[in-house]
């Protein structure tokens, strides 16, 4: 099949509507085509929207008790799940150019779409296993990326402690209108603290500096320190759990050098848990 013919299959693939042969041919193509992989990823989001775009109807009130009782009675009867398998070894992200790593990730995501469902039809247990694997591998990959970005400083151990925390979660930060290309990510453990990373922050003008804020739900911003930029607008910070125990929003503002007690400008980067 030509590329144009294969590209016609992106929609059917994302909706799970390809025949077996076409699906195989398309998946082989996906592994090498960043354009189609990206489109499949976008269509997967649309498909998820289709699930929510139906008329909303309240279920009968009695269903709540029925479902809760049924689920919990099964819970108490079930045996312990099998132990976690080790996550598969993945290609180190740093070994690939960025665009290729992205293409590979998209293709992997797209390729993962069907295999899971095939397994689901064979056995729900097998699906459990793959979900656990995929999650573990995804987390492991995130940790690898984050660890690779960590300079060998005295903070490294503390950062690793946060990244490895059982309660660690991620918050994605988006560049606001004054820095639309900026992106950031926070790894937050309520018990061990918070690791903040960002890239593409514009260089501040003379006498100005970026300041990091942790804003608890319903509370006032608490300064989490000043940020120094490296090349590429990269920066990172480690925030103690005494400040980061309750996080609603994490934001970055541009302030007079040395910092201010409360933000005086709109955020350039912000994300909410």
């Amino acid at each position, binding site marked *: 099949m030509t590329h144009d013919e294969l590209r016609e299959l992106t*929609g059917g693939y994302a909706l799970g509507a390809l025949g077996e042969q076409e699906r195989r041919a398309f998946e082989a193509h996906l592994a090498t085509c960043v354009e189609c992989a990206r489109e499949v990823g*976008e269509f997967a989001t649309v498909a998820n*929207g289709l699930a929510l775009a139906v008329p909303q109807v309240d279920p009968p009130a009695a269903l709540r008790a029925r*479902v809760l009782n049924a*689920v919990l009675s099964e819970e108490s009867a079930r045996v312990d*799940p099998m132990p976690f398998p080790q996550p598969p070894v993945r290609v180190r992200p740093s070994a690939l150019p960025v665009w290729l790593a992205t293409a590979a990730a998209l293709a992997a995501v797209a390729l*993962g779409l069907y295999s899971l469902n095939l397994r689901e039809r064979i056995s729900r247990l097998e699906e459990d296993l793959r*979900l656990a694997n995929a999650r573990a591998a995804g987390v492991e990959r995130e940790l690898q990326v984050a660890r690779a970005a960590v300079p060998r400083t005295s903070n490294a151990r503390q950062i690793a402690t946060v990244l490895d925390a059982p309660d660690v979660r991620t918050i994605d930060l988006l560049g606001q209108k004054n820095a639309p290309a900026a992106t950031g990510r926070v790894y937050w453990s309520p018990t061990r603290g918070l690791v903040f990373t960002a890239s593409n922050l514009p260089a501040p003008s003379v006498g100005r500096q970026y300041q990091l804020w942790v804003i608890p739900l319903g509370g006032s911003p608490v300064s989490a320190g000043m940020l120094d930029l490296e090349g590429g607008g990269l920066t990172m910070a480690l925030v103690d759990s005494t400040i980061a125990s309750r996080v609603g929003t994490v934001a970055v503002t541009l302030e007079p050098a040395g910092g201010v007690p409360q933000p005086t400008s709109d955020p350039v980067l912000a994300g909410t848990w």
Partner: protein
Amino acid sequence: MAGGDSSALADLYDRHARAIYSLALRILADAAEAEDVVQDVFTQAWRQATRYDAARAPVAGWLMIMARARSLDRLRRRRARISTTEMDPAMPHPRDPEIDQETLAITREQAERLRGAIGVLPDVHRTAIELAYYEGLSQTDIAARLQQPLGTVKTRIRTGLLKLRDVLSGRVQS
């Protein structure tokens, strides 16, 4: 959700049962079966709860994909009962927890926008997409149902999804 206590389950139910029920009702057009789907989904979710950490990923996308898969399972069993021909084993909806986290999270506002956009899609595009998504038909099935060439169906599905994607991403207004 991890840890699996009953108040967390109740909370999960209160947040998502309506959306799950609504999708199942749309696919199955049968209230009793839609209720069974809700129970199936929460049972499956709970079975995986100790390993799926809701703190890491929005759980809504995951639940909705299970809701679609369970609903289509039932729809296909029903069709198999009333049909003497072999059903095409069309795929249930793809899901991947990593996609849930990175890509599939859409807001209520986006869902609303998408709903409007679906309404104004040309009929031929909307019908093809709806047959694939809500009825689980393969492109070949759809071509037969609509008596259109397969190539036409492929193009309609992709073109329609491109339009919906543009609405969802804010590139165009619905």
